[in-house]
């Protein structure tokens, strides 16, 4: 049906329900219905990573993801990382190394880094480039971003 439907999912740890249209994207749902503005649509084509969120622990481009498809899933946005009032180690590392200028791309880089460190706790430079190659930073903070990922990795390993 082109009619709206109700979906149920876990958003940043809380069970939520939402009424969505079949043609609504996930980034639209998060911004318009839940006032979560960390994910933002920039390229709209899967290329830049500004709209990154985690669905069942995996990073996706929410600009290319139908909202209806998160029915039954768990969605995590950048807002959740500091939900307890403390910044996540990845966020702290980005601040300490100055890994941004305008900050528009930062939520996406932070969430990609979360997935990277979940899968590879001690990433090589190649691993970092590979995971972050789909995120674009127009301010060109790439060297500092790579440094931030390494710092966060060291801290999380307790090294």
């Amino acid at each position, binding site marked *: *049906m*082109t009619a709206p*439907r109700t979906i149920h999912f876990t958003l940043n740890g809380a069970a939520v329900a939402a009424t969505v*249209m*079949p*043609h609504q*994207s996930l980034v639209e749902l998060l911004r318009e219905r839940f006032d979560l503005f960390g994910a933002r649509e920039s390229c*709209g*084509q*899967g*290329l830049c*990573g500004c709209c*990154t969120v985690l669905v069942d622990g*995996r*990073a*996706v*481009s929410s*600009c*290319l*993801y*139908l909202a*209806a*498809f998160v029915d039954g899933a768990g969605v995590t946005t950048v807002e959740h990382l500091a939900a307890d009032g403390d910044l996540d180690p990845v966020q702290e590392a980005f601040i300490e190394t100055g890994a941004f200028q305008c900050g528009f791309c930062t939520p996406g880089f932070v969430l*990609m880094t979360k*997935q990277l460190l979940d899968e590879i706790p001690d990433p090589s430079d190649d691993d970092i480039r*590979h*995971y972050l*190659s*789909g*995120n674009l930073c127009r301010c060109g903070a790439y060297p500092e971003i790579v440094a931030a990922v390494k710092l966060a990795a060291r801290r999380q390993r307790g090294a």
Partner: protein
Amino acid sequence: MTPFELEEPVLLGAALALLDPEDSSVRAIAGGTALMLMMKSGLYRPRRLVSLRKLAPALDGVRSAPDGGIEIGAMVRLSDLRRSAVVRAAAPVIAETLLTHSNVRVRNVATIGGNLAQGDPHMDLPPVLIALGASVRLAGPGGERIVRVEDLLTGYLETVIANNELITAVIVPPQTGWRTAYAKVTARSADDWPALGLAVSVRVEAGIARDARIAIGAATETAMRLPGTEALLAGRAIDDALLQEAGRAAAAEAPVVADHHGSASYKRVLVAVHLGRALRQTIAGAER
């Protein structure tokens, strides 16, 4: 995007029944990465999309076949394909190809079925699967048929898949004796869409190329084999002169077209150079 109906059947039969043989504004949606791009740009305005999401349990997983080949469920996501130990053992070139395919987020969502059904000549996996001799299982109202990937793709965004057929699996035959390499050539970053994709499979015995399968993508209207170049290699001793001759032959044989990744004459030069390199890579592998 314009509004559409969204159906989410849980059984294959129901999904097939929801498709419409006469109406191309009704389509399946798997990961949606290719469809979302087309819908957002207005290139495609569906009336109804039939989501395969709830069929995923039946169309998932990578299995070893009794003959030593593998069978990949249509809903297997590219990131799972890249990590699959079964794939790495049976056809490592697939995992290697996925390393520079799109990006982690796209691979987390995009499926192998959607990749092949899209019929986009700029994709990396179709030439690789052609060189591996792979086929797809197509389910339709009348039952199942098996089509080789090289026969599946017929033109730009065109395939032989009927409106009311679905890919259920990809079959990769055993690769005993064969070595495959894929050369992805991009005009910008390494993980960009390819300007040229060349997949080369050879069966080498004592320095002689007994058999070859060569498939080209991205530089042509659709991914395809180059039978003339394959025939030129068969039974010949492999040396630098032959590799150069094969490169020139492939550049002459392939119906190369221009796009925003490069002119046709530029792409022909790429073909001539990279065919030799890809062949050398397979041969180096074979002699290891």
